[in-house]
């Protein structure tokens, strides 16, 4: 009688143990797989954002090359890409012929285009927010300025 009861308890324990082991194995296999998927998706989103930042940054630089060449106007311009469906992406473009910025007064203009993801929405770039910066220089072309009416 006692032996039979012990045997029954042993059977119960063994079944439960198997179940627990199976569950643990299942969880141990699934957890890294899900973490891997989540990490891959996050990396994909980061690459996607980097591509869009890059695209907008080049676009702004091209636009300001044309604007600067037309009338040699200098200064900083900023804004967002909300109308394109990216309200969290902002840009700032600085055009300067100041030698301190790498320019030569009335001869060489430095153009720096910065586009970043303004994650905290404060309008400024903060450490940790992804950004792309492009810089170039253009020479003054009087013939072009005359043609542009500048």
């Amino acid at each position: 009688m006692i032996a039979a009861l012990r045997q029954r308890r042993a059977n119960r324990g063994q079944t439960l143990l198997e179940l627990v082991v199976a569950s643990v194995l299942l969880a141990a296999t699934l957890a890294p797989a899900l973490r891997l998927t989540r990490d891959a998706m996050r990396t994909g989103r980061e690459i996607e954002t980097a591509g869009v930042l890059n695209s907008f940054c080049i676009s702004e630089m091209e636009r300001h090359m044309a604007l600067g060449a037309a009338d040699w106007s200098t200064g900083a311009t900023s804004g967002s890409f909300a109308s394109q469906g990216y309200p969290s992406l902002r840009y700032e473009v600085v055009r300067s012929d100041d030698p301190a910025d790498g320019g030569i007064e009335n001869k060489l203009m430095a153009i720096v285009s910065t586009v970043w993801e303004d994650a905290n929405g404060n309008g400024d770039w903060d450490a940790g927010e992804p950004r792309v910066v492009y810089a170039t220089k253009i020479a003054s072309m009087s013939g072009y300025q005359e043609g542009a009416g500048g």
Partner: protein
Amino acid sequence: MRHSRRALTMLELVIASSLLTVLVASATLLLRTSRQAWTAQEQDHQRLQSAQALLRHVVRHARQAQSVVAASGVGEASGSLSLEMPSGDIFVWNHNDAGKRVDFGVTTANGLLADSIESLEVVGYEADGTTITNNVADMQVLRVTATVELPREVNGVKTLESWVWLRAW
């Protein structure tokens, strides 16, 4: 006693099977959801990549172009662009509204360049960079806008825009 132990073992098996079924069903659901999210993201990514590749292609050639031969202009959502290249070839980009694609070719746009493009707008500007013009002889700056729809996102219409300054003048 043997009968009693057999009945209990069966009960244990039933419970264990039920629990395992629940576990496997949950795991399957979890994996399926992950896979669906992954597929949706991949689809979005491909569409954005397609639009970016299209804009890069246009910008790269426009920088080298001798002149603008034709540009569809403001409000033309299924637009086109023709550029004369230094070799004398006419490079043509054309949006196919029915196929939601952009074709490209020399003289005639007859090869697929980018798909899943909802719209393509090409606007020409004068040398001042601010005055819109339809006169190709006055075009010194182009604004090329491609729109894609991303099914994963709630507000999934995304517009990618590229300005390009034509160096030849």
